[in-house]
């Protein structure tokens, strides 16, 4: 348990240090995720405590966004000024991205075998 927490923090720390040393524009924790991924590939399994700590963190992932999100109160004026551009960007951009990405996969992947039982196809 303590070892798994240390492993996660160590990966993050290594990421933060490397990002600063080489001046990468990638966030430190993202590089930390790559380090942990490589570690898991080398181990060829997820050690049970790492699994447990990761699940615990990811189960409550949405809570972790709240403190940063509340920071928006500092930018109320800007949201008021640009609400139309922001709304169009979020709604339009998201619909286009989902549609295009799903469409590409649908075209490029071979059909899954028998999505319906034989004889039930309409």
């Amino acid at each position: 348990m303590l070892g798994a927490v240390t492993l996660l923090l160590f990966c993050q720390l290594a990421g933060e240090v490397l990002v600063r040393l080489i001046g990468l524009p990638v966030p430190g924790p993202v590089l930390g995720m790559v380090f942990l991924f490589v570690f898991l590939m080398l181990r060829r399994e997820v050690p049970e405590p790492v699994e447990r700590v990761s699940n615990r963190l990811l189960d409550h992932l949405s809570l972790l966004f709240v403190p940063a999100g509340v920071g928006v109160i500092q930018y109320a004026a800007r949201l008021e000024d640009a609400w139309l551009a922001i709304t169009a960007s979020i709604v339009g951009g998201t619909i286009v991205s989902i549609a295009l990405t799903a469409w590409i996969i649908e075209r490029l992947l071979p059909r899954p075998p028998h999505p319906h039982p034989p004889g039930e196809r309409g």
Partner: protein
Amino acid sequence: MNQPDIARLWVYLASAPLFWLTLTLVVFQALNWVFVRGGRMPLLNPVLWSIVVLGGLLTLTDTSYQSYFEGAQFIHFLLGPATVALAVPLYRQWDQVRRSVVALGVALPVGSLIAAGSAVGLAALLGADRSTLVSLSPKSVTTPIAMGVSEALGGVPALTAVFVILTGVTGAVTAAAIFRILRIRDQRAMGFGLGLAAHGLGTARAFQFGETAGAFAGMAIGLNGLATAVLLPILLPILLAMFD
């Protein structure tokens, strides 16, 4: 308790990290309860409403974000290790990734570029300023990565966090209609599209289409997080130059 006592108590509470930390946990859990009770309707998203309620309380009580954050930072800190932990589900689904490598190899970079490009393009055409554009650009990526990318590129992480959540809500609300109109029935396609464009909230929606959709959405979160973190620093200057 008489008036000055209450005033003194409030002075203590408003500046004590313990109060805002506890309040954040209470508000989130209450709204999460409402969300679960309300059949997990995307519009009841507990993150969105926690931000509205807590932001409203800070404004009403004239409390600065800085004194709020002194307490809330203990929750915020966990975003870093949580981002690292995303390696675990990615590792679990690695076999599926390898088997669909061609389709994913096309859909990932194209989807990632479209997600950032459409966000910046639409907002730029409607006259948003540069720092708003930068803050919008990683909006399809899971919050911890999006905020990190936004900060690294000169955006406003707090704005990005809200844009990311609104993106997730939009994706969850519109997905069924999009798939119906385009006649997309393959769960792998639905899941990957939702996870790539609408991160964790899209993934929660994908699980309602089926297990396979959910697994592909979870994988897409990690992959697009990485792709965006690597591609956006190169792409963004080009986008900004195009629309300037």
